[in-house]
Every structure is written in structure tokens, then in C-alpha cells.
């Protein structure tokens, strides 16, 4: 009971809890959730959001540290662009491997996650390490490379607003444009899309893959620019994996991803508060994540079976 109270206080109990904990933690989940939703919609099992996020964080950090003295809007814009490019590039490797060499993206993205982890580990001890060369982290960003806050006195930053806008854009593209239709058609059935729709399946999937990586890269840019203001090795505590739950619970609908990302953000914020005041370990939240995923899996299958039986 005490633990539940602490959980509520930490997640929704005050303006501070919502604006400085829940929504801040929801931000990276929102971007990676969208990334996974887009990929799954296109029939791509991109489980490499973790690595794409890391690359995005590295790209944005390199820009932030490499543009001293530039005006803030320009630096922030370049950081976002670098994050998206780096994440898209990382997904692009898997996309090329899939398109040209028929390598299963499930396997290649797992490999790329490990390579990204080794890469960031080297970056924070090598090229991007802070000047005293003691800690495995980059120098703290200058003020011009820190994202503006949305509400004075709260930690909610630009990244969240961009995430919501990205969700709206992705929904519009998927629902109302020809490109979105092609992605959905390919995801629903590549053979039919090619034969009946005349769609170049491999090109559409490759582009969707890269766009998905760019979204995950933005999560990394938003974390270093809005939260940590420096590059760390452990920049992501497994956001790329939670993203699968976020996207799936939203039934791959970008609008609902906003809601589920906030839900999982609240879980993390509440979990942290629970650990602080009631001594319940924050990892217990992972049990909730896993059970939610399994429940969704069970329920969708059960519904599908019911529908099939009703139709037959």
C-alpha cells in the first residue's frame, strides 16, 4: 500500500511529478515507440532501436561539442538532424543487409545493438571523452546545446513536444499519403503489394527501415540534449526493448503511442519513487512491462480466434 502510494506520488501526484518525471521519461519512449510502430507496420522486425538510439546520441553529442559559440537554435537543429541521420544510417546498414544480402533484420539489428554499445563505450573513453580523461563520459554541453525547457522550473524539454509532433506527422503519413499506404500494404502482405499494387517492396521497406532508425536516433538526440547534457555509456537503460511494448500496446497506431509512452514513462517515474521511499526495487517495473506485453499478446490472439470463429 505504501509502495503504491509512493508510486502514484512519483508518477502523477504533483505537477512536478508529471512535468519533471513522467513526461521526461516518456520522451525517449515516445520516439523509439514510434520507430518500432513504423517498422512493424512495414513488416520489419526492427529490434535495433536500442542501437539506433545510441548512434543518435553519439551524433547529436558530436555536433553539440563541435559547434561552440554558435547560436542556440542552429545548434539544437543540427543536433536533431545529426541524431536522425546517425540513427537512420545505423538502420540503413541493416536495411542494405536485408535488401542486398537477404540477412534477417532480427539478427542483424541485434548484432548492430552490440556494435553500437561497443562504439559508444569507445567514444566516451576516446574521441569524445571529457578533457581531464578520468570519467567515461563526454564534456558537459554548453548552454547553447541544451534543449529549451517547455515549462519554467520543470524539466520537461523540447524533445517531448517534438515527439508529439512526430507522432502526429507519422499518423498523417501512414493514414493519408500514398507513401503511407504503400508501407501499410507491404506490411500487410508483401506479395499482394507487389503483384496487385505494383509496389517496389524492397525499396519501400528499406526506406521505412531508415525512417524508423531516424526516429530512434531522435530519441538519442533528445536524451543527450534535453536530459543528460553529456554523452554517457549507459545513455539507454534498454529503451529500445521497452519500445516494443510501447508500440504493441498502442496497436502500432502513432496516436496511441503517445498515450502508451506516457504510461510507461509513468511506470518508470513511479518505479523510481517507489524505490526511493518504499524500498521496492525499480526493476519490479520490468515485471509489469513483461506481463503487459504477454497479456496483449494473449488477448490479441484470443480476439483474432473469436473473430475467426464468428466469421466462419
Amino acid at each position, binding site marked *: 500500500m505504501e509502495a503504491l502510494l509512493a508510486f502514484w506520488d512519483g508518477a502523477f501526484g504533483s505537477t512536478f511529478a508529471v512535468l519533471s518525471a513522467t513526461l521526461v521519461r516518456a520522451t525517449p519512449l515516445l520516439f523509439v515507440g514510434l520507430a518500432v510502430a513504423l517498422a512493424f507496420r512495414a513488416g520489419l*522486425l526492427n*529490434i535495433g532501436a536500442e542501437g539506433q538510439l545510441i548512434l543518435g546520441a553519439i551524433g547529436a553529442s558530436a555536433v553539440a561539442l563541435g559547434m561552440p559559440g554558435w547560436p542556440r537554435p542552429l545548434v539544437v537543429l543540427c543536433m536533431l538532424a545529426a541524431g536522425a541521420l546517425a540513427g537512420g544510417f545505423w538502420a540503413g546498414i541493416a536495411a542494405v*543487409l536485408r535488401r*542486398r*544480402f*537477404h*540477412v*534477417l533484420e*532480427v*539478427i*542483424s539489428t*541485434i*548484432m*548492430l*545493438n*552490440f*556494435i553500437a*554499445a*561497443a*562504439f559508444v*563505450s*569507445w567514444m566516451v*573513453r*576516446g574521441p569524445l571523452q571529457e578533457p581531464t580523461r578520468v570519467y567515461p563520459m563526454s564534456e558537459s554541453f554548453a548552454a547553447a546545446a541544451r534543449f529549451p525547457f517547455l515549462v519554467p522550473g520543470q524539466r520537461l524539454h523540447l524533445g517531448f513536444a517534438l515527439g508529439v509532433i512526430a507522432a502526429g506527422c507519422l499518423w498523417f503519413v501512414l493514414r493519408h499519403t500514398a507513401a503511407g499506404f504503400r508501407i501499410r500494404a507491404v506490411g500487410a502482405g508483401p506479395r499482394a503489394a507487389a503483384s496487385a499494387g505494383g509496389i517496389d517492396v524492397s525499396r519501400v521497406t528499406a526506406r521505412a527501415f531508415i525512417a524508423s532508425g531516424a526516429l530512434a536516433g531522435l530519441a538519442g538526440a533528445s536524451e543527450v540534449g534535453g536530459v543528460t547534457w553529456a554523452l554517457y555509456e549507459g545513455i539507454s537503460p534498454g529503451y529500445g*526493448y*521497452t519500445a*516494443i*511494448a510501447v508500440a*504493441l500496446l498502442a496497436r502500432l497506431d502513432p496516436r496511441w503511442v503517445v498515450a502508451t509512452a506516457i504510461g510507461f514513462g509513468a511506470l518508470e517515474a513511479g518505479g523510481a519513487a517507489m524505490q526511493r521511499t518504499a524500498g*521496492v*526495487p525499480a*526493476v*519490479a*517495473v*520490468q*515485471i*509489469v*512491462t*513483461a*506481463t503487459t*506485453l*504477454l497479456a496483449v*499478446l*494473449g488477448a490479441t*490472439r*484470443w480476439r483474432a480466434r473469436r473473430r475467426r470463429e464468428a466469421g466462419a
Partner: protein
Amino acid sequence: MLELLIIPFLEATIRTATPLAFAALGELVAERAGVINLGMEGAIIAGCLGGAAAALAGGSGVGYLGAAAAGLALAAVFAVFVVRIGSDQIITGTAITVLGLGVTGTVFHLAPALVGVGETLPTTGPIAVPLLSRIPVIGRVLFTQPAPTYALYALVPLVAWWMRHSHAGLALRAVGESPAAAAAAGVASSRVRALAIAFSGAMGGLCGGTLVLAQVGSFNENMSAGRGFIAIAIVVLGRWTPWGTAGAALVFGAAFALQYLVQSLGLALPYQLFLAMPYVLTLVLLATLRGRAVAPAHLGR
């Protein structure tokens, strides 16, 4: 040179490869039945916890049993969803891994005494095989190892023979290539898949048990450290064969051992290069093996 560098390096290679080989052999059997078990990481950490708790209660032998049972239990959940309900393998596997990490982490924080934090676990040290261990170099590298390594020496040929020559092994491969054809031949494909998943879970558990009882000597949160995913890479690098998998486990073991070697030599090379190398190698190999379909045709579906 030989005494100070080469032999310790080879020893470390075998030591690092042992738990990896357990998990990879399990993953191999599941994948040959057409199931990618992404829940392997969860089975390993469950094995770590189960191994520690069981060893505390009944000694190291019971510990290994407990480890296998814990991995098996988690794999059973995976099997119910994937085989019974027909859920997506990738998503279910991810959920199982998160579940395993969550449950073990929570137990570790809430009941540290249960897993023997602060106590000494009964562990299994290296055993020198009479005669064989006295062969120069090879003896110290191959035959002065803890018991799980010796179990592997028997297990790899056994699995290879079983998969190639036994009736059940043929059924396993048939299910992975074409469940419809297997069913037409009278093979109960869902039972084969469920058993293959169970085996992979038990092997993942043994991987965890080896980590706790033969190497680290205590349970820690997240101590599986991605080995479940590495196991998947190993199977790919080993081109879905038992001997290939064993060889690939050695490659990964050597790559990880190499970073200690480089660090102890004080070379200026970044050690992360060696951490990343096996994964790059796997990707390159996958890309260049084009034209020869080596993966089971029905994998992941």
C-alpha cells in the same frame, strides 16, 4: 611468452566460451525447430538465480539442477505463448527476457539472503583430468577446467549425432524447414517445437548455472550481460550446425579473452574493438554466405 600469455589466453577462451556454448547449443536446437528464442537471455538470468538458490540449499550439484529447472520454467512460458497461443516469437521472446531480468532483479533486491548475497556459495572449481591434464599446453588449457566444460565435450558430439542420425533429430529439422511437410509425414510439429524450446531453456539455465557456480561464485543483477543475444549470434556464425556452433562459441570466447590480453599487454588499441569484432564478423559472414540458404527455412514463423 607461452607461460605468461598464450596459455592464460587459451584458458580464458575456453572459460568464456563454456557458458556461451551451453546457451548456443540450446538456441541451436530451438532454431532448427524454426523457433528463434529471444527469451534465452531471460532463461540464462533465471538459471543464474535458480543455480545460486539451489546450490545454497543443497550444494553445487543441486545447484546445476536448479539452474536448468529455472531456465526450463521460463522457457515453458515462452512455449505456451509461441506454440499454444501462436504468438509472435520475437515479441514473446523479448517479453520473456524482460520478465526474467525483472523477476531476478526484484528477488535480488527484496530477498538477497535467498540467493546467497554476502555468503559463500558452494562452487565447482577446476578439476584436472588424470593423465590428460599432463599433456603440455593442451592439458592445462583443455583438461584443467570445471565440470561444465567436460559436460560440453560430451554434449556437442551427442547433439551433433542426435540431430543427424536419430529419428527425433530428423523430425526436429523437418519441423524447422517445413512444418506442413513434417505434419504430412506424421510429425507432431507443435510437440517437437515445445520440446525444443524446453531443451533450449534448460541449456540457457545451465549457462547461468555455470556462470554462478563455476565462474563468478555469486549472483548479481543482470549478470547474464547479453549472453542470450550473443548465443543467437553464435548459432548464426556456426551456420546452424552443432560443430559450427561449438567453433563459433570459441571464436566469441577468444574475442572476449583477447581484450584481457590486449589490456594486460598495455597495447594502445581500444579494447572495444575486440568487443565489437565477433558481431561484425557474424554480419560479414551472413552477408557473404549469400546463395547458400543455411538458416532453417521456417525460422521465426
